[in-house]
């Protein structure tokens, strides 16, 4: 297990290096100019040149890259070109809302989609099944910001059950936090619910055809026990996998959701950073999300061993 973990960690190094090179080149080849973002649109070329020089943007690309990588290896992600704040500090300020949003969405997903998927698979072909499938295909088909606006329109503006926008940290009390995070969490979860309930259903359908399910029924066990004890645990791996690969999808959902609900999270930070060409910030955030993606998927791989005792990583 340890050696497997180490091996996976080692393979993550070339992956992350590739990400770093890719992002670095991509950004440096774009025509935008961070100096412009600092100086504003009424600055003259001479002023811009001064700023570029002082930021080290006139150095050769390779020099810039290795300086950056070398600093990062020491844990120094540098400073935002625009605000001159340490990148890590800026990320630290914004990561809380994003994590809260993601966890809320994940929680809602589990609460809603697992029972839905199990039910649909159990009553395969029936009315419930069709309803769940219809629901999930609609979840895939409606853009997240439309869902967001509809939720706001109905539950915040018309019914006034929830605030229209904003975010309060958990430190301000659970109720204000939950009250504000629920709608965006639900909007973000919509596509995830569609994905996970669909995968749960598919995986359960497959598992329900397995011999051991027949064995369980042959033993005279109740359907609840058959479904949740015998089938669901075996169906877990594809579900976990889709949760992991869906992480990237969740990030794009986060970007949009944060904009719709005005949540000061990482998603908005990164869009702003891209639009302002704030290279160190973009690089740090993308590396961070890519790293998180790699780690989440590694953890999910390791969690297979928890759900399935046959898996012993050599």
């Amino acid at each position, binding site marked *: 297990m340890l050696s497997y973990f*180490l091996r996976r960690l080692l393979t993550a190094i070339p992956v992350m290096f590739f990400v770093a090179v890719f992002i670095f080149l991509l950004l440096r080849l774009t025509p935008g100019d961070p100096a412009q973002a600092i100086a504003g649109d009424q600055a003259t070329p001479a002023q811009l040149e001064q700023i570029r020089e002082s930021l080290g943007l006139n150095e050769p690309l390779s020099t810039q890259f290795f300086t950056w990588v070398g600093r990062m290896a020491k844990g120094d992600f540098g400073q935002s070109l625009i605000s001159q704040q340490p990148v890590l500090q800026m990320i630290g300020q914004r990561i809380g809302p994003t994590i809260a949003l993601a966890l809320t969405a994940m929680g809602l997903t589990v609460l809603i989609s697992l029972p839905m998927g199990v039910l649909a698979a159990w009553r395969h*072909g029936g009315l419930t099944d069709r309803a769940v499938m219809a629901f999930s295909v609609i979840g895939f088909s409606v853009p997240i910001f439309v869902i967001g606006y509809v939720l706001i329109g109905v539950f915040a503006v018309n019914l006034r059950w929830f605030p229209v926008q904003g975010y309060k940290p958990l430190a301000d009390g659970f109720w204000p936090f939950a009250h504000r995070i629920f709608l965006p969490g639900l909007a973000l979860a919509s596509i995830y619910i569609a994905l996970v309930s669909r995968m749960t259903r598919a995986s359960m359908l497959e598992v329900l055809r397995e*011999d051991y399910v*027949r*064995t369980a029924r*042959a*033993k*005279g066990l109740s359907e609840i026990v058959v479904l949740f004890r015998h089938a669901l645990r075996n169906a877990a791996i594809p579900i976990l996998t889709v949760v992991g690969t869906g992480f990237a999808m969740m990030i794009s959902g986060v970007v949009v959701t944060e904009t719709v609900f005005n949540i000061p999270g990482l998603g908005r930070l990164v869009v702003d950073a891209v639009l302002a060409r704030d290279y160190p910030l973009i690089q740090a955030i993308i590396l961070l999300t890519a790293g998180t993606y790699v780690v989440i998927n590694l953890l999910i791989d390791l969690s297979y061993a928890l759900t399935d*005792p046959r898996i012993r990583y*050599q």
Partner: protein
Amino acid sequence: MTSAPVLSVRDLKVVTTARNPAEILKGISFDIFPGETLCLVGESGSGKSVTSLVSMDLLPRGELAVAGGEVLLNDEDITKASPSRTRALRGSEMAMIFQEPMTALNPVLTIGLQMDEVFRAHRDMRKPERKAAALEAFESVSLPDPARIYDSFPHQLSGGQRQRVMIAMALALKPKLLIADEPTTALDVTTQKQILELIQRLKEEQNTAVLFITHDMGVVVDIADRVCVMRHGEIVETGKVQDVLSQPKEQYTRDLLAAVPSLTPRKARPQEGQEKVLELIGVNKIFSFQSFISKLLGHEEHSVHAVNDVSFRLDRGRTLGIVGESGSGKSSVARCILRLEDPTSGAVVVNGNDIVPLRGQKALAEARRAVQMIFQDPNRSLNPRLRVGESLIEGPLNSGEARAEAMARAGDILEIVRLPRESLDRYPHQFSGGQRQRIAIARALMMSPDVIVADEAVSALDVSVQAQVLELLAEVQKRQNLAVLFITHDLRVAAQICDDVMVMQRGKVVEFGPAEQVLAHPQHAYTRDLINAAPGRDWDFAKGRNIGALV
């Protein structure tokens, strides 16, 4: 057997629920009495498994449905009982064991928990009582170290152990009826023998009625009191096992019995000339699994010695059988010869050339032509997306033959394997399993090979089809003067077609010699075990008599 039947099936009809319903069971009837074993025997598609599922009320919902008749368990009609009632009956009054011990146990739950569920679902027992009962049940099926088994996961047990666990679970509550659906088909013969004996013993101890489903006549001989021969959803013939086997009334039964190969080796064939086409010299194959990291961490290399110093020679016109149980390395030998695997050491000499050092398809072209293979599963060995003709001419086209010429030849060869020429334009799924295996043989013949390696080439086929394919193979061998390397787990088949037999165990050759000698007078203990374990070995199916008494 004067008491009332435990299970009484009356005019049972089952149909598919698709738009055009097809009858799977066309009104079958039988009874089973306490302490009796009734065998349902038949080839694939005869409906024998469906019968068992109806009895357990486990028909797949939305696919199959009972259309008529009744299934009486102690005079209670299962087909009309409520789901909760049949659930209560399942596990307590009737129990079932399945074919695949690998998949029949839930891989993510401990054996103990799965056993425990049986008691929890049907009996009002406290936890310690249940555990004691479970351990006792494991004991009764002769499982070693029940306490360890209780805490194990299924994958930590061998196939035989798992099937014992299944039996323990099935019989834990002393049901009146045990349904065993091909419970030994997936097991090696030696294990099969033990399981059959176990079922027999428990049946006698508990006076259980057993409905035993099998395709193997040998197993029928060993276990059944009475037998029902099924075909296409109907019962063709039923009666006491001795009667049916020795005096079959129906032609179908007679054909079925005639097709069972005899365990007695055929007469040795005279060898004309000694032209060596294939020789293995000290071949080893070691699969090793070690990652870079584990090497760094200084972990032991994990390796399997699949083929251990195997040497033999095969002459033109001869058939060499390699027999052994699963994991004996017999298939690895074949894959080394065909260079689907690279041998770790040793020489594979084809027509005088060692092919082990050769690399790449070009260098191997001649060896590829000379040695061809027929695979076990005819459903998978033909590309389902290619027409038969395309599959047949693939090899010749690779070696530069003109397309039209190759196609013409393919037609001729199809006729040799007794398929119509028009088959060239069809797709594999339009053929039965036996026909597909013929096509596979034709494909091998297209290359005009010197050696054909047949890896379990008839194991997936029904016994009647198996006989036809074996016959064809023999005919083709004679016609083309081929050398055949025949790999099988089935001693009966080996006895019928091999000149020489090589017995393998854990990668090593334990015995090698003429078939007559190896099979009739085995020297090695393992060979003897194999032969003793062959089901129905005391019965001569062709003649319909017991020969065990004679020996």
